[in-house]
């Protein structure tokens, strides 16, 4: 009998050892132990619970021989038993139904439990779980049984830990691949929304979680604003500001925050909305770019979830990768905005230049055309594209005077404004242009560009000429008046005296000659009268540009 039992111990030990070396899933090891151990140790039931480091509670790992109701109870054992377990010691209790101090006897009684052997599962001096063997008859456990069970529990500890380690490594490899993939995706675009949506769409799937949100700090207000979300209802997303949540404070300080029990944890607000949405656990990690925190990424689950170190590291790594991409996208957005502004400014400037009547041309230091306005384009009858980049001399309407320095070159060399009036003949009509050339200086000094404006001043010029002619005419008239006036008195004297003399002449021949004198003097008088009586005048062309006054 004893030998059989020992054989049984050995077998189960071998099986467990084999499983540990072959099977990587600690669940299988736990299932095997709880199934096989009751028969071997003549107990009715066995459970294995694992310590959740995040919540410091024991979570059911495997069970055999117990009802779901019993397993679902909120406690495991009395405080003193749990304290002993946490100290690494096994505790055996019997006759529970008769023990008035055993607080939880009601559940035990319902299940018919009389004796329990609780054993800590230890790995490298850490309690990682508890194994319990239960009987429905009063039973005492021998030292040998306890010792065997302890050894087995230790083996389970090794199996669980190595399984976890393997799972962790597997996860890490997966995560590493995923970090790489997400990094590739987010860095393949400069569109901020695509980047954010890629992360929130992909990350929950990879981590087996329900939802993901990204909030970014707005540089203007330094407030977090929701930038992207997946897996959450609009109602939940609009529940209100979360800037006063401790979890957010912590994340903004650069620390990841894992909230196991979101509906009750004081580090998050809006518990009602959280319950309604079915959120159980939340992981918040900072989005960083170098030392700077630019936002917070949150992962949400619909099952209570204890976030493992590698999950936290993974989420943090993704958030950091995203940080670079987000910042690049933001920079790109800024550059784009600036570019658009520059483009708008340029259009505005062009519109101003085009609205001016003057013809405007801008040339660079090498005398190549860099800008022309519509006035210039229309006058040249060539497209703007055909004009840009052309050497100035090819499109300038000016003939190059032999030996004369080019005015543009002069302005580029001296930096002094040059204004001159030039006369062109267009279709045999004179065209007067006022030509002004202004230098544009480079920051480092020296003339970088020259702006030439051409203003048609033909009508102004003709007005000016008319005015000059009018003034000249007024001068002529004034002089004619003065001359006439000065002539009239002597003419009057001469004419009158001649008339008197004629009356005294006796010879007919002399009188005829005097008449010639009188006739000519009278026509002189008639002329001076015309001159002074003139109220208006007309001019007529004489020779070339010279005009003479015609008296009426």
């Amino acid at each position: 009998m004893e030998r059989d039992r020992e054989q049984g111990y050995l077998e189960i030990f071998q099986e467990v050892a084999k499983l540990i070396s072959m099977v990587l899933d600690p669940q299988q090891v736990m299932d095997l132990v709880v199934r096989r151990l009751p028969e071997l140790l003549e107990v009715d039931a066995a459970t294995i619970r694992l310590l959740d480091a995040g919540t410091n509670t024991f979570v059911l790992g495997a069970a055999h021989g117990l009802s779901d109701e019993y397993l679902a109870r909120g406690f495991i054992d009395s405080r003193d038993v749990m304290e002993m377990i946490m100290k690494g010691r096994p505790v055996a209790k019997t006759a529970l139904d008769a023990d008035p101090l055993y607080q939880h006897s009601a559940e035990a009684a319902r299940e018919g439990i009389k004796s329990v052997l609780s054993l800590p599962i230890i790995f490298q001096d850490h309690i990682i779980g508890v194994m319990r063997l239960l009987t429905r008859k009063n039973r005492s456990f021998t030292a040998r049984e306890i010792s065997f069970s302890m050894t087995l529990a230790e083996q389970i500890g090794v199996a669980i830990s190595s399984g976890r380690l393997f799972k962790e490594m597997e996860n890490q490899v997966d995560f590493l691949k995923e970090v790489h993939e997400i990094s590739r995706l987010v860095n393949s675009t400069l569109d901020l929304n695509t980047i954010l949506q890629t992360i929130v769409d992909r990350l929950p799937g990879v981590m087996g979680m329900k939802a993901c949100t990204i909030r970014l700090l707005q540089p203007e207000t330094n407030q977090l604003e929701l930038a992207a979300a997946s897996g959450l209802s609009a109602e939940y997303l609009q529940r209100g500001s979360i800037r006063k949540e401790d979890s957010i404070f912590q994340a903004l300080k650069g620390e990841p925050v894992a909230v196991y029990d979101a509906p009750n944890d004081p580090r998050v607000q809006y518990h009602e909305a959280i319950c309604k949405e079915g959120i159980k656990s939340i992981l918040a990690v900072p989005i960083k770019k170098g030392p700077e925190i630019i936002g917070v990424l949150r992962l949400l689950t619909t099952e209570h979830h204890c976030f493992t170190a590698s999950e936290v590291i993974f989420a943090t790594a993704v958030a950091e990768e995203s940080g670079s991409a987000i910042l690049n996208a933001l920079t790109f957005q800024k550059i784009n905005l600036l570019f658009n502004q520059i483009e708008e400014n340029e259009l505005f400037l062009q519109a101003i230049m085009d609205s001016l009547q003057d013809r405007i041309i801008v040339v660079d230091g090498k005398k190549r055309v860099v800008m022309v306005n519509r006035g210039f384009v229309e006058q040249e009858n060539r497209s703007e594209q055909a004009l840009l980049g052309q050497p100035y001399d090819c499109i300038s309407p000016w003939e190059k005077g032999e030996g004369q320095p080019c005015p543009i070159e002069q302005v580029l060399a001296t930096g002094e404004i040059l204004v001159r009036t030039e006369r062109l003949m267009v279709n045999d009509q004179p065209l007067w242009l006022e030509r002004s050339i202004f230098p544009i200086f480079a920051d480092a000094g020296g003339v970088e560009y020259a702006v030439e404006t051409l203003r048609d001043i033909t009508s102004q010029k003709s007005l000016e000429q008319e005015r000059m002619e009018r003034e000249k005419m007024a001068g002529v008239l004034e002089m004619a008046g003065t001359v006439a006036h000065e002539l009239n008195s002597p003419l009057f004297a001469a004419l009158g005296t001649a008339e008197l003399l004629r009356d005294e002449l006796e010879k007919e021949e002399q009188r005829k000659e005097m008449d010639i004198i009188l006739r000519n003097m009278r026509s002189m008088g008639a002329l001076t009268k015309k001159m002074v009586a003139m109220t208006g005048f007309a001019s007529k062309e004489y020779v070339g540009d010279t005009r003479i006054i015609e008296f009426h």
Partner: protein
Amino acid sequence: MAEIIALDDVYDAVILIKKILNKKGHVVHTFTEEEEAVDFVRSHAVDLAILDIKLKKMSGIEVLAQMKKILPEIRAIILTGYPTVETAREAISLGANEYCVKPIDKEELEEKVSRVLGEGNGGITAG
């Protein structure tokens, strides 16, 4: 028969007026200096003053104004080599009887003098 003074800065002009009007039996006193002419009016009963507009120091209009003050009933013929609306208006307002543009010929002068002297109180006649 009338007492007439002729004032012009051109000596030959006043001599001519004198010759023409003497033949018509008038007594003509000739002047080229404005003050002398004005002084003459102070001490003589003059019927008619023939004044050129352009004189040496003053204008004929100013001389007429002074003479009218001394002798309000004096009649006047203003001669000008360069008529303007302003001088014509001033001459009329000062009571000039005629406003003639030089050169004026013998017959015209005789006719105008005779008409001015023949008028009752000297309203101007367009000429």
